[in-house]
């Protein structure tokens, strides 16, 4: 039984240590602005599709969206803002995927696609 409190304390300490190293601080309320989604070294003329997704309640949720979108031929990079549910998909200029391909990819996740703005489209207000 002496093992139990020692092991528990060790584990709790380890978890807090990991969290301290890897979790990120919260952002200001202004993070909801679209500018908070930083483009990961996208080319200036690279087409970008913007998706709005509900139900991503955890870091692994955003990872799932990332994985599914990257399976689509023509999606080069993905950036997810969990606070706003805004997802930027950086597309290949030479062979960008279609709206249907992106919609289908999100349908394979367990989340809800609210809106999809393809490159060149006028964003819905």
């Amino acid at each position, binding site marked *: *039984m002496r*093992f*139990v409190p020692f*092991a*528990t304390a060790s*584990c*709790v300490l*380890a*978890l*807090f240590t*990991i*969290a301290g190293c*890897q*979790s*990120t*601080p*919260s*952002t200001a309320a202004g*993070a909801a602005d679209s500018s*908070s*989604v*930083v483009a990961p070294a996208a080319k200036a003329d690279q087409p970008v599709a913007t998706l*709005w*997704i*509900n*139900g*991503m*309640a*955890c*870091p*692994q*949720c*955003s*990872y*799932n969206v*990332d*994985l*599914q979108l990257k*399976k689509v031929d023509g999606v080069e990079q993905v*950036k*997810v*803002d*969990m*606070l*706003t*549910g*805004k997802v930027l998909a950086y597309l290949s200029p030479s062979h960008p995927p279609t709206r249907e391909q992106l919609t289908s990819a999100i*349908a*394979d*996740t*367990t*989340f*809800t696609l609210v809106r999809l703005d393809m490159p060149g489209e006028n964003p819905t207000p």
Partner: protein
Amino acid sequence: MQSGLLASITIAASGALLPANAHAQTPINAPGAMQPSTGTGVLHIMPMYRRLDSFEPDNQRSADEYAVLAQVAYGLAKNVGIQFDVPMVYSNVKMAGGGTDEDEFGLADSTVLLKWRVFQDDPAPTETTRFSLIAGMQIPGTIDGWRWDASDGWDPIAGFVFSTVRGRHGFNADALWEFYTGDERDEGRSDSLRADASYLFRLSPAQYSADTTGALYAVAELNGFYDTNGDRTLFFSPGLMYEARSFTLDATVMIPVHQDVDHRPETEIVVGFGVRLSF
């Protein structure tokens, strides 16, 4: 003797019977209504320790048990997932008064479960409510001997699970019934029910952002187990969970707050540590 469901729980502080899922504010020792996306999965490995006391014959036995629970959850379709749980157990049983120790090692009863999400509402980017039906089977393991939790039956399991996440708060509830199909009812085995309720609070970050790569949760669970032979146990299970984008670390302690058992050992405590890897 007791049915496998109740037994699995005991083995399973966190795994054997369909616990961990791996997404969002779902509990460590109980199921959640979240599941992997289509074509993706989660591997959960959980070493754990369990201390048992006062069991047959004549309440003279106690046991230290070390288990490694391996769990794989995989998304078959948008609303359907499958999950396998395989616990490997080493037990060292001691007799009061200096009797001979007894060791046992092998696979305890495993489970295969299908989860079908029948309701989902995602009203906001980080909010969701889900309800799933669960059906599956318990598969007898390779160990038997003195064990009270080595079922001789291929027992069907049916139940449901509800999960909701509202910002930093997550709530889960589930109930699972296992129908005992073996030939040892006269030895005390029976159908069994497990019911769980849990609350998870996201300690950090207080608010998600575009740069969030991980989250730390405090976990509080109530895990209840009832056998139709009359045995019942209620655990309070606090824990911590750190969830990164592609892996999760969790730690839990199951503390019995009520035990009334005649057909199995009393559980003094269960401690488990887990890692879940997405693939």
